[in-house]
């Protein structure tokens, strides 16, 4: 079937098999390989992208279900090549990653979380990231990064 969606602001269209998963569309058709296939069973969250602004596990969404919709991956977050999104900057500043495999999904889950709850408590950050596993178990710095990003984004809004 013909599937067309907006990926990071760019229209991407392709004829794909009906059973094509969104993660494969994003990686192989749109050529954006940040979203990882980790567990492939909607447990680990490495494949998390935004679908119409909400975090989803793209290994458990058909490309056909995203037809006509807007997808954002971690590659589409920054406003320019020299500027990171506040969540990306906070992950860098707080060392919110070790091997980096979970990071694209973790960042997108954090962006979705902060959209829904701009000033989360530490406990809300931890429960808000329940759907993302870090096998390096670097959770403390990830939580710290999300809290720092919340503060930075609030500061930007006030300016």
């Amino acid at each position, binding site marked *: *079937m013909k599937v067309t969606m907006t990926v990071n602001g760019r229209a991407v269209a392709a004829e794909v*098999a*009906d*059973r*094509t*998963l969104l993660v*494969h569309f994003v990686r192989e058709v749109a050529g954006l390989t940040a979203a990882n296939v980790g567990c*492939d*069973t*909607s*447990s680990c*969250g490495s494949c*998390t992208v935004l*679908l119409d602004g*909400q*975090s*989803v*596990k793209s290994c*458990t*969404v*058909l490309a*056909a*279900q995203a037809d006509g919709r807007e997808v954002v991956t971690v590659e589409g977050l920054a406003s320019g090549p020299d500027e990171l999104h506040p969540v990306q900057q906070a992950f860098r500043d707080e060392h919110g990653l070790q091997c980096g495999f979970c990071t694209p999904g973790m960042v997108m*889950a954090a962006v*979705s*979380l902060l959209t*829904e709850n701009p000033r989360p408590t530490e406990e809300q950050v931890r*429960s*808000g990231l*329940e*759907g*993302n596993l870090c096998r390096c178990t670097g959770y403390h710095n990830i939580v710290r990064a999300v809290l720092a990003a919340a503060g930075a984004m609030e500061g930007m809004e006030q300016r």
Partner: protein
Amino acid sequence: MIPAPFTYRRAWSVDEALELAGQGGDDAKFLAGGHSLLPLMKLRFAVPEVLIDIGRLGELSFIRDENGSIAVGALTSHHDLATSGLLARELPLLAHAAGCVGDPQVRHRGTIGGSLAHGDPAGDLPAVILALDATLVARGPTGRREVGAAEFFRGLFETALAPGELLTEIRIPKPRDTAWSFQKFTKRAIDWAIVGVAVQGGSVALVNMGPAPLRAAAVEQALAGGAAPADAAAHAAEGTSPVDDINADRGYRQHLARVLVARALAESRTRT
């Protein structure tokens, strides 16, 4: 891991969905959020030949106050249930339990109708719907019918829905007794409940204590007879037939049911 090949059809109305289901016959399945069905298809536990995507039927996504009851569209996501101000006021049990399903990503995609139609005894919402004495509305080739929650869940992944019939709406009477609690025992954050308990007033329903969600009838009778909550909870395992599996054996689950029902009843009484 991708599903076996199938034909994807997209419905733009309930009527069209029913028509497509009729054309697809026994090998067609409705696809809502897909968070139960797609994992099963990837593992080849389900191999439908036709998927009818009902995910764009906006007419089935709503939460409405209709005098004495709350009407919830089958396609309403767990996220929308969990963040609904109306539900927080009128049916906090449902709002809270929906917020305990899976994780945020799952709650963005998963729907109440999908969860109920899937009929997994480990699912959270079937027991909640049972405790709330809801009525389920289905539409099929022969018209519309209503099924009480007590008659809806028939067994392991088995419901009262006939082939080609679509769950469209859940109608929940506003509870007279506002005491409520939801207990979910898991080993890790996003696991299914090893055992769960939903309490609304004197109604008590159990997650994962048999092939289908069930009411803890002996507990309810004891409560109705004036027993103290802690004494009533001692009856929680009566009439249950939980499985032995990798997470827990039968005796452990029965013990958990007694403990969690006691906790649920105690917590619920702080909310009247």
